[in-house]
């Protein structure tokens, strides 16, 4: 295994009595896309700020590219790009001028900066808006500009805090594609935080699920989604009444429970592990017109909800 790009050991940040980040162990390597997932207030942003040396840890160790960010903040910040949550720019300056300011702070020469800015504006899809003041940008355009801003210094690590919020679905796909390309082609380590799990699922090599400052699960998204041996929950929409559905499934042993779903003529069905396909074929054989099937446990959303409940249960013991 190559040297880790980010390494934390028992990293803890405490405000008063509250442990915002609790004994966190993380390890990423070059070219990896790592997702920090969790609800707002789970400690994701605090973790990121500690990695950048902007918040001092209460205890534990951090190494970013082999450096301690608390001791060498400048060395770390010159090699790590950061897109903050709700990124802001100077509204009276144009996109290009904003980027030029960042380039200057990173000691890029004027010509180098201009060349870099031109290519980054293309990458993030802002070629036409680069010379307009940021005050007229939409939230999504600012987000794109923020990604360009974080990339100006040619970072070895790119940290993105909620990079896809406020971007339209098509834009999200573009941005995630760009992130993926940076990791695979240029070997940039990417750490991204998000609460939008299914978006991130597609792009991350590994994820850590954060709940109340603790990592409750860590691994590749598909591993996390299927590591449970418990029952599977499926939401189906079907053009039939509950009685018909019950009749169709009457003699099936895999059925654990059936109850109405959130929408009319949708049902939440719990089946034994690995039986979703059987459920669907039973319904089709019975001639019921299925309109949608969603395996809830397949989603990270569900994984995340499961861990969240488990965590609350242990907390109350």
């Amino acid at each position, binding site marked *: 295994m190559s040297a880790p790009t980010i390494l934390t050991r028992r990293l803890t940040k405490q405000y008063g009595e509250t442990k915002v980040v609790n004994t966190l162990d993380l390890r990423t390597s070059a070219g990896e896309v790592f997702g920090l997932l969790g609800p707002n207030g789970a400690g994701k942003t605090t973790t990121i*700020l500690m990695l950048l040396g902007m918040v001092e840890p209460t205890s534990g160790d951090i190494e970013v590219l082999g450096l301690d960010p608390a001791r060498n903040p400048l060395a770390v910040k010159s090699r790590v790009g950061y897109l*903050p949550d709700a990124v*802001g720019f100077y509204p009276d300056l144009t996109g290009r001028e904003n980027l030029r300011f960042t380039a200057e702070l990173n000691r890029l020469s004027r010509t180098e900066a201009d060349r870099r800015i031109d290519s980054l504006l293309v990458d993030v899809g802002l070629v036409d808006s680069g010379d307009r003041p940021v005050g007229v940008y939409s939230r999504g355009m600012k987000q794109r500009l923020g990604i360009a801003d974080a990339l100006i210094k040619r970072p070895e690590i790119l940290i993105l805090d909620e990079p896809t919020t406020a971007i339209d679905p098509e834009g999200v796909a573009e941005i995630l594609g760009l992130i993926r390309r940076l990791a695979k082609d240029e070997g940039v380590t990417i750490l991204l935080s998000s609460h939008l799990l299914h978006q991130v699922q597609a792009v991350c090599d590994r994820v850590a699920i954060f709940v109340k400052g603790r990592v409750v699960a860590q691994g590749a998204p598909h591993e996390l989604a299927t590591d449970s041996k418990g029952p599977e929950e499926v939401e189906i929409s079907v053009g039939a009444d509950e009685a018909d559905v019950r009749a169709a499934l009457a003699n099936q042993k895999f059925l654990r429970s059936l109850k109405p779903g959130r929408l009319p003529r949708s049902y939440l069905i719990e089946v034994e592990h690995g039986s979703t396909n059987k459920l669907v074929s039973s319904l089709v054989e019975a001639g019921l017109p299925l309109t949608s099937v969603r395996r809830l446990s397949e989603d990270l959303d569900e994984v995340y909800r499961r861990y969240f409940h488990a965590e609350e249960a242990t907390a109350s013991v």
Partner: protein
Amino acid sequence: MSDATAPMHAIAMADEGLGHGWRVVARKEFADHLRSIRFLVLAAILAIVTAATVVAAAGGIRSVASQAMGIPGIFLRLLTLESPPVPFPFIFVLMNFLGPFLGIAFGFDAISSEKSAGTLPRLLAQPIHRDEVIIGKFVAGLSIIGMMLIATTIFITGLGMFRLGLSPTAGEIGRLFVWVVVAIIYVGFWLALSILLSTRAGVATSILASLGLWLVLIFFGSFIFSAAANLVAPSDDAVAVAKAEILLSRISPAVLFSEASTVLLDPTQRTVDLVTVEQADRAILSNLTLNQSLSVVWPQVVGLVAITTVLFGFAFVSFMRQEIRA
């Protein structure tokens, strides 16, 4: 949000080289100021007020031209003389209104606007020390104020030459130059004050608080100082009370600036202290050189520099000790 464990390491500035970042910040801030509407508005107000007060003063000097010619430093009276229809001399307006406004205008949103626009986390994630941000902003503000005050002084000189038909002597130019440096430091006090408030309060709160302090210091200052003087000095001794009041009032930068200006702009002024009738009676009239004037008000100048520096120090520490979050 403040935090006792905030990054003290950032205060140690020697390790990775201070010097690049603050210049970049200062250059950007200076350019922003120059392009701002706020700059245009202030420059226009400054020009109008200067023209009005100085033209009126020139008129006053011309009306007594026959006696005026022999007076030393007559050219400098353009700043200190009031003459109808304008009720205040330039120096009074600068001290009480324009100076504070200039300082507050270029500082009240220094840090708070970065916070409200969400640019601060991004800025602090760049390879610069945090101190460079606030130093850069202070330097930029002071530069623009310096530029405006120097331009104003040149404008006054031009107006004076035109209205009075005489050129300032080398001595008068020297006095103007020293005076404008002191004026910049005085406005720097208001700049440091408003930057300090901007590190802790939002944009609106920091401008309100700055203006509130201006109101108290400028309009109620003398009342407060005389009340305090009556407490500390024996009330039956009028001279002692007056002396105590003068002494106490020197806490105020406006008073220090006023005293320094009076002496620097008038070679016949020999003291800033209370002069009794008996003392004045025996005095032999003579003019001071610039050096002598400067040594009379040296304590005032040092006091102004000290107050401004201490205030900026507070702003610096306040900014360094807070935790910046997205």
